[in-house]
């Protein structure tokens, strides 16, 4: 059993699954809340669409981390992590590197959806304030981006660091 590869794949899967779960729940909730508003006044659809899309970005970030991890562990290039004790450590490091995106994305997508929900109600009552609603929901995006950057830096630097340590 190649434990190193298993751990790394688990990390890549976690990053994409947790983010896609949270994003789909978030987008679904905001879209559900938007539908009575659109039914009342379909001209608000454009303003509401931005709010509906915002919690979806975490799913994409998770996918990015997952693809880069798969590239780094050699599953796409055909040069996988070796089944050695050093390989297990490398795999574990990739798993750890995926965690900030997995959990940061999960939490931020769900909380962003909640802010977007209040934004839907704001647009329903005061369509002229749609900019404020979008800005408020975008503030939560910052923390998804921080998670993305952290995971990205960790994932791309593991192979180089391990080589230097081995050398």
């Amino acid at each position, binding site marked *: 059993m190649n434990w190193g590869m298993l751990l790394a794949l688990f990390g890549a899967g976690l990053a994409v699954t947790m983010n896609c779960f949270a994003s789909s*729940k978030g987008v679904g*909730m*905001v879209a*559900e*809340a*938007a*539908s*009575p*508003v659109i*039914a*009342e006044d379909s001209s608000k659809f454009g303003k509401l669409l931005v709010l509906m899309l915002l919690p979806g970005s975490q799913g994409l970030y998770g996918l990015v981390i997952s693809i880069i991890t798969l590239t780094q562990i050699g599953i796409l290039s055909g040069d996988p992590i070796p089944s050695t004790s050093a390989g297990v450590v490398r795999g574990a490091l990739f798993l750890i590197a995926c965690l900030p995106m997995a959990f940061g994305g999960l939490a931020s997508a*769900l*909380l962003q959806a*909640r802010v977007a*929900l*209040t934004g*839907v*109600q704001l647009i*329903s*009552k005061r369509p002229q304030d749609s900019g404020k609603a979008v800005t408020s929901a975008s503030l939560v995006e910052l923390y998804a981006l921080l998670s993305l950057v952290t995971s990205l830096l960790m994932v791309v630097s593991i192979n180089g660091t391990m080589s230097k340590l081995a050398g």
Partner: protein
Amino acid sequence: MGASITKYAYAVSGAHVYEKNFFRKSDMDKLLAAPSYEAVVAILQERGWTMPEDTRDSGKILDLELSRAWAWVQLSAPDPSIFRVLILRNDFHNLKAGIKCLLSDFDVDAQFCKPASIDPSVMKEAIENHAFNQLPAPFAELGQEVYDLLVRTGDGQMADILIDRKCLDEITKEAAASGVDLLKEEMEIYTATCNIKTAFRAIKTGKDGAFLEKALSTGNKTISREKLIACAGAEKKMDELYAYLATTSYSSGTKYLSSSPAEFEKWVDDQMLSLLLPTKYSPLGPEPLIGFYLGKEAEIRNIRIILAAKQNNLPLDVVAGRLRRLYE
């Protein structure tokens, strides 16, 4: 974010959209200033209210509108059963009205309250056929008991006590079972103030503690049933009652009890409504739907007062003083 409250996204958003059409204070002023009953009905019609064939029947207009709001709650809520407690008193009223009308040959249809969880036609059929077992618990057993009591003794007051107490007990039980804090708090105020009114009237009419033992409901946290009963047994009953109420959270409203029961009712309604106001901005959960329905009830209550005033040519200043706080 709890999993269950996220199911309310559609319902809450829809309720907030619906609420935009609620009457505000300025709209109530317009209704008050309308020259006649017909003018008020015309304004209601302009606001999209569905009208019955006979617009002279204000009860039907209001029942239709409240039933529409209730239908929305039932249609959109992920778990409609927890909201049943909001209309439970209508079912008990319908049971009481149905049995009394049957025994006194009055037209029962005009007495039924809507919305109700038991279809009034089902209630009517069960009562007319004396087939109370067609009704769900606790109405089957209670209906039979009250019917037998009225046939045997004709004691209308005891029949009222049995039904009203069971109603309050069930409301407390269902509110607790709902697990929704707002519902528990709202129903606590409702049932506790009903007990206060019962105790006040009983003491005023010289009833003793044994009467209150039968009449007062159980399960209140903000008022002590035992202390209310003890007041009826005291030497200076009314003074004891006021002294006790002054120690409760209802102390600021009890000053209205002696001057005007209608003022006390208004105070209770306003207290209940003020608890709802924070839910106006909640994006999820059952609370905004509770606020929506009780807010609609407050609006209907005010319009009922205005329509009655227009039909009876009552002075505007008296009517304005009776209007309740709105969900705005």
